[in-house]
């Protein structure tokens, strides 16, 4: 497969996964902001999903503005709108390597997110159902990929992008939220707010089934880091990444394959055999940060060894 095509498909997978991840985080934040009396809580998210300076962030004063900026703003290159636009541009460039259904699904998502009514719904009426619809479009995309694409290199690269992005996303959100939730005065985590972290990562239901409503930081971390039945856990994402990567063996130069296999294997095992202590926030932070760096190294290695970028 052409390096450029592989690169484009891989990023198509990453953009789509990123969009769904961020929409779920935004949705959860919105719901939690309606649930309780609290200060304006959008600042951390505006920082991750936008390009505003600290002063500009101070000027965003309503939920509607924050939602508009992160989801629909065309000037914000990290907005969901732009992610979908980039995905579609990517797909257009490699139409002959994805199925017609995948292209049409993405094309529909693009036309949906451009719909003028969407911004009205987000600003004035019901952001929850609107964001839900966006997320559904993303899920439809995943299903269409799974059901219509041939199991060739294209399918492999789209999944490599998806699971790498998912691992990065789960590590980032956990790191940010766990620090936010740690209450220094009581030297513990605020249990109710742990729910929101689980919601953000699509993990609430799995958690309830696994731990029966006992919300402890240790269990939450166990689920997000190690539970391989939970499709958004970091370890699950890494195992999938490794599984898809192994399919590339025949299509790779041996030295490139070995390099990537080493990096993915190392990161996966670092997570698998780690011991984290939720009470030691400093080392938890350091561990999650190191995981992030390892994942970025994998991404850079793909760029260098498979996509021909130096």
């Amino acid at each position, binding site marked *: 497969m052409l390096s450029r095509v592989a690169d484009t498909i891989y990023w198509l997978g990453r953009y789509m996964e990123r969009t769904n991840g961020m929409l779920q985080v935004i949705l959860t934040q919105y719901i939690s902001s309606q649930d309780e009396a609290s200060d304006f809580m959008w600042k951390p998210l505006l920082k991750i999903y936008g390009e505003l300076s600290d002063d500009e962030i101070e000027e965003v004063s309503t939920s509607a503005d924050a939602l508009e900026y992160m989801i629909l703003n065309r000037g914000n290159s990290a907005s969901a709108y732009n992610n979908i636009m980039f995905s579609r541009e990517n797909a257009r460039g490699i139409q002959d390597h994805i199925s017609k259904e995948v292209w049409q699904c993405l094309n529909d998502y693009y036309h949906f997110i451009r719909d003028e009514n969407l911004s009205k719904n987000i600003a004035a009426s019901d952001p929850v159902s609107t964001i839900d619809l966006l997320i559904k479009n993303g899920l439809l995309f995943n299903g269409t990929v799974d059901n219509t694409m041939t199991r060739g290199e294209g399918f492999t690269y789209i999944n490599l992008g998806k699971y790498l992005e998912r691992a990065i996303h789960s590590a980032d959100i956990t790191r940010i939220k766990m620090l936010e939730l740690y209450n220094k005065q009581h030297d513990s985590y605020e249990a109710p707010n742990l729910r929101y972290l689980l919601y953000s990562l699509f993990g609430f239901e799995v958690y309830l089934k696994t731990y029966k409503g006992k919300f402890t930081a240790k269990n939450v971390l166990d689920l997000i880091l190690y539970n391989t039945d939970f499709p958004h856990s970091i370890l699950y994402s890494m195992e999938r990444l490794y599984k898809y990567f192994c399919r590339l063996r025949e299509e*790779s130069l041996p030295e490139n394959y070995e390099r990537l296999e080493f990096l993915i294997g190392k990161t996966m095992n670092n997570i698998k055999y780690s011991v984290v202590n939720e009470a030691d926030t400093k080392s938890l932070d350091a561990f999650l940060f190191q995981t992030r760096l390892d994942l970025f190294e994998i991404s850079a290695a793909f760029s260098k060894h498979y996509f021909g970028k130096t």
Partner: protein
Amino acid sequence: MNQNSLLQTYQEQPDVWDEMFNAGDIRPPYKNFVSAIANLPAEEMTHKDEMAKKLFMSQGITFTVYSSGEGIEKIFPFDIIPRIITADEWFLIEAGLTQRLKALNIFLKDIYHKQYVLNDGIIPARLIYSCPNFLREMMNVDVPFDIYTHVSGVDLIKDGNGKFFVLEDNLRTPSGVSYMLENRSITYRIFPDLLPKNNVRSVKEYPDLLYKNLLALGNRQISNPTVILLSPGMYNSAYFEHTTLARLMGIELVEGRDLIVDNNHVYMKTTKGLKQVDVIYRRVDDEFIDPLVFRPDSILGVPGIYWAYRKGNVAIVNAMGNGVADDKAIYTYVPDMIRYYLNEEPILQNVPTYQLADGDSKKYVFENMDKMVIKRTNESGGYGMLMGNSATEEEMATFRDAIDAEPRNFIAQPIISLSSTPCYINGTLQPRRVDLRPFALYGPDGINIVPGGLTRVALKEGSMIVNSSQGGGSKDTWILMK
């Protein structure tokens, strides 16, 4: 006579050959088609029209217009009424184009080698050397099988008497063939059963024929040469065509940045390292194809590809330098080329053309400017033209000054009244002017002209400019079996 209001309200234009009607009667090849639509309720026709538009949009058969950083999807307008060509007409077109392309290929070989045609005074040498598309870099380059125009599209028109003329040769990177294929696939959907009932010849072998010809050009002793399609990328207006052809032939669609030249061989960059390329069907123009030889600012091409080509390590389709043969000033001499190289009389006539570098012709053209269309020799797409019958005095004066300054850059032709055909517009049938671009494939086994083509329509009322950039659309083109 038909009682259907759709047909009755149709207004034939005086002195214009209408493809479907003749003084109120329906011409024989259209009778079958007309009887199939004659009894359709008006809503049904409108429904078909809308369905065609939806099919184009949902299948992504679109081109993107970029404005203010955003892409807007547009479809190339399609008219649902097909244009029909009889077997006899097609026989003439096929024979005429085959003859013409043979002569043009010999001309290209000659002009880039011994130049007998200049030495014998058939074509003035100054016309060749003043042509910006004559590439000195192609002198003495031997191209595989002496074929230069592997893919060509020749524009034909019909005059007021229904006679075909050649308006223009497109021998560089002619586009539109994907619309020939897609228009047909839309027609199946909106007029079920009509194609087989009318004995319409199929166009679907085009990609197979093209692939077979491309494969034959591979120069390495291997069973499966690597054939690719080189596109300028997704911002090119014909990008849809590039993806379609690549998909239908099952070949890789690449951009200049995917290719690299090493030791005069061309490779593509794959996830498994470099892979040698044998044949390139390129849709990048000559001037952009190699920044080391042609335009140095081009990022669409591949540095060094020219030398790989020259050494015969890669085949490039179409050959470089074909622009000298489809230059509008050289066009005038194609009938002479046919006589000179083939010792035959041209089967298809040219539209009479005046070289404005010639003093007497220029005088005549200036005196009859209102009956002339004046074209720049190095422009296409319907740009740089003056239609004498609709031009203002001021526009004419501007053209006169420009012609006086650079007469080589202009030709003039009497305005030919292009034939018209009914188009379904706003719920009625209205006459619109058309031309026809059949596509010819020239391979080692000879010339094949796929029975079909792109009928382009000037959708603006009264307009004779069919180019898509100027508000033109297209129709499915049916070639009937004998």
